[in-house]
């Protein structure tokens, strides 16, 4: 029994928090402020505990397994959730359904934990749904807003559709191999065309969740409509977890079909980077802008994934870690501004530096990191992804990726330009950021700078493999 507790420690903790919140909700409830503080403390504790008493192993006949990499991945996700609780404090405090929000969010997180720990297709599917359905509900949390429910609708319908595709694929896999376990599956894969077809179905479902072109179309709309905290969760935590499981599924389960999926990943990666960038170029809404930019980022993650090496794993994990800091910071700044002024357009940001230097610097740091400019960590993240991807000596692929960095730089600079250079008669007034948000931004800023420069972080990740 002790083993159950230890190996599934992270899941237990999350479950415990969920139930605690549920109790509070069912009881007389608490004021939003103190409840939020409680949640923040709990999440921080959760994050910190993630580094201790870890035990590797597998349970339930291999349905659940964990390893040091997986534990670290979970820690990244915990960190992200903790940061979300800090960064979006302003919006959260105003929310009527704060406990529900966190219950859903943590359920989704739990789903992600199970997902990256899953050892068979059933567990994978279930936890994927657990990680999706609550988020769809969370997307609707701006209850009065039309676009919020539109976003939720788009998300739930298209993810249901993608689930259908996924399931059909799984059923074909099951039929062709007779197993759904990740351990035995690889031995049964022989590259027959039906298996390829089934694989494509599965791949498409992953691609849908990761917003890979052409399965990405829901992303921008959902990001734009959903409340900022949900969007941030979706774009960072959700993406990260999917990337992890996607990678390990490709490597471990479909390792024998490497040649096929390498090409698939390459084509889609190029398409994703290009399309993501081209759309990001013309966005005015900051959330939509970040959505497309995150699509382009996924293209880069794919470059790393394509390497199918331990370097690939570490660089993807590393990149996601950096991405957590950078993207959350960007969203948080946008959220602070949006929740106090309602402004979400890039043009509204003109002259922001005059009135809000702190927010501007954090935003700039985050965007530079997303663009891969040193000394921010994004530079290292992107570079390692490319380096991992380059190990196949596919120059064309790497060149396209590298050139896409320029396009992406262009639109990141567009925001930078608005913030720092453009003149504005009526800039956004001084924003009063919540202390928690400030703390979160500082953590993100430090993370953005230090994750790269302190090389032991990467080495630690690498050593986990």
């Amino acid at each position: 029994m002790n083993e159950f507790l230890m190996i599934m420690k992270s899941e237990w903790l999350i479950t415990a928090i969920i139930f605690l919140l549920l109790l509070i909700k069912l009881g007389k409830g608490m004021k939003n402020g103190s409840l939020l503080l409680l949640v923040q403390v709990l999440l921080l504790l959760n994050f910190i505990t993630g580094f201790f008493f870890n035990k590797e192993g597998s349970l339930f006949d291999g349905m659940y397994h964990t390893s040091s990499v997986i534990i670290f991945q979970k820690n990244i996700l915990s960190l992200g959730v903790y940061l979300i609780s800090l960064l979006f404090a302003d919006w959260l405090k105003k929310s009527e359904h704060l406990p529900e929000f966190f219950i859903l969010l943590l359920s989704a997180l739990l789903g992600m934990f199970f997902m990256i720990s899953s050892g068979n297709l059933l567990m994978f599917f279930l936890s994927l749904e657990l990680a999706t359905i609550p988020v769809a509900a969370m997307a609707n949390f701006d209850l009065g807003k039309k676009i919020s429910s539109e976003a939720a609708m788009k998300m739930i319908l298209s993810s249901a559709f993608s689930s259908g595709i996924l399931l059909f694929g799984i059923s074909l896999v099951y039929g062709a191999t007779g197993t759904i376990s990740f351990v035995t599956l690889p031995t049964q894969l022989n590259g027959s065309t039906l298996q390829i077809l089934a694989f494509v179905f599965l791949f498409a479902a992953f691609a849908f969740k990761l917003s890979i072109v052409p399965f990405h179309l829901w992303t921008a709309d959902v990001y734009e409509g959903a409340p900022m905290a949900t969007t941030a969760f979706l774009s960072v935590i959700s993406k990260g977890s999917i990337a992890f499981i996607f990678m390990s599924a490709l490597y471990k389960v479909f390792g024998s079909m490497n040649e096929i999926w390498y090409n698939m990943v390459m084509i889609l990666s190029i398409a994703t980077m290009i399309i993501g960038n081209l759309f990001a170029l013309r966005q005015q809404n900051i959330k939509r802008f970040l959505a497309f930019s995150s699509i382009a980022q996924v293209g880069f993650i794919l470059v790393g994934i394509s390497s199918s090496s331990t370097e690939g794993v570490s660089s993807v994990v590393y990149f996601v870690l950096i991405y957590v800091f950078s993207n959350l910071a960007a969203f948080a700044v946008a959220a602070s501004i949006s929740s106090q002024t309602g402004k979400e357009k890039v043009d509204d940001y003109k002259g922001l530096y005059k009135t809000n230097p702190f927010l501007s610097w954090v935003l700039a740091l985050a965007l530079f990191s997303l663009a891969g400019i040193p000394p921010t960590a994004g530079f290292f993240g992107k570079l390692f992804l490319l380096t991992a991807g380059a190990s196949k000596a596919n120059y064309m692929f790497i060149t396209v990726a590298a050139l896409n960095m320029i396009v992406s730089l262009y639109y990141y600079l567009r925001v930078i330009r608005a913030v720092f250079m453009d003149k504005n008669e009526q800039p956004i007034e001084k924003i009063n950021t919540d202390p928690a948000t400030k703390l979160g931004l500082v953590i993100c800023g430090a993370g953005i700078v230090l994750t790269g420069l302190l090389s032991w972080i990467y080495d630690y990740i690498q050593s986990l493999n």
Partner: protein
Amino acid sequence: MNLLLLILVPLLTATAILLMRNASQVKWVALTGATAQLILAFVLFFAFRKEQAAGNPLQMLFQQQYNWFPSWHISFHLGVDGISVAMILLTAFVVIAGVLVSWNVARMTKEFYFLLILLSLGAYGFFISLDLFVLFFFLEIAVIPKYLLIGIWGNGKKEYSANKLALMLMGGSALVLVGLLGVYFSTPEHTFDLLKLSDIQIPPEVQKICFPLLFVGFGVFTAIFPLHTWVPDGHSSAPTAGSMFLAGISMKLGGYGCLRVAVFLMPQGAKEYSTIIIVLSTIAILYGAFATMMQKDLKYMNAYSSVSHCGFVLLGIGMLTKVSMTGAVMQMVSHGLMTALFFAVIGMIYERTHTRQVNEMGGLLKVMPFIITILFIVGLCSLGLPGLSGFVAEMTVFMGSWQHPDPLHRIATIAACLSIVVTAVYILRAIGQTAMGPIKAGYENLSDATWNEKLAAIILVIGIVAIGTAPFWLNDLVSPASQLILEKIQLVQ
């Protein structure tokens, strides 16, 4: 001599600047930092000479190596040879001059100086790193400060220029990146270490792909034709110190990279592509010169002339002889100092006349003798007057280039020689119209340089004259290094 100091000093300066409360504190901190840089650079210079005199046979001196991302075989490996020392000296000169010239920046002073110092940090790091990854890291660090400097403190169509600059430079560095990755994976042990790589023969087929990537990538920084178009716009929109840094330091990153990374690591590729390099650089030299002739804006003029002058750098590198490569490095140093000074002077003039159009000026010698004297000096340096640095560098390039007897090299050299005439035409035109002739109405009461401007100009002039009158020290510094590069090239047959 601990090379880390070269990174730490700017870093500390930058941090200190962020902590300062008001503009004047910021300025003085920046000046102190810049002075410290200059002192450090000189200490390094003398320490290096001492080692050299003692007969230290190592290619790279003062090496230091720290672990950094060991899983990628990346290490923070520092070291200098003569070329780096020369570039570091150049950087230190330009930085202090840039700091002095910007004394009057009123808007967002703290940020301005912070970015300036950050830029210098990137440059130093670039010049001392012996690990390609670290080198690339510093190369990119230097891009964004430029963007912000132009975009925030610039004038004219600054946003456009800043964007263009950042994108083109990033484009260049993207190519560099791909090239570096190719190099990285071409060797069995996967290393970014420059010295290790130079011991290993990089396979010819890799060189064939990676050399052009690296050379063009770095070439963008140093305005290789036809990827030079960021230069005119970028320089002309930048604030004075920005232009100085841009032309004085940033463009040198490219030349240094071409030499240190592309040619040094891939001699075979260099040989294969030398013809193209020569053709392109010759075009750049002449074309830049002729384009300069038609400019009416002083900054555009200097920017285009930079294209032409940097063509000499690439020509020198492309010729692949010891002398020509030495000349290329000298040209980098010389052009760095000279063009920084030129921009400084243009800035001073602009601050007073509020125009940069040559035909709107005239007879300024009367009211600002000091500034115009400097303008004369720098103009003469630009057109290659002996006794000033430009001459030495250009002549070394010519001498080196002439060593190939085949027609292409000959023609290229002759064409390059002829460019000195065109240079004379445009420089004299500029000087004639701005400084000489009857004074234009409204300019009678303009003031001459202030102490900081004078100091800045004098520092750079000292550099220019020192190289011009005593080139041997620079030559002694650079030539052994280029000899080593040449030996690598000669190994390839």
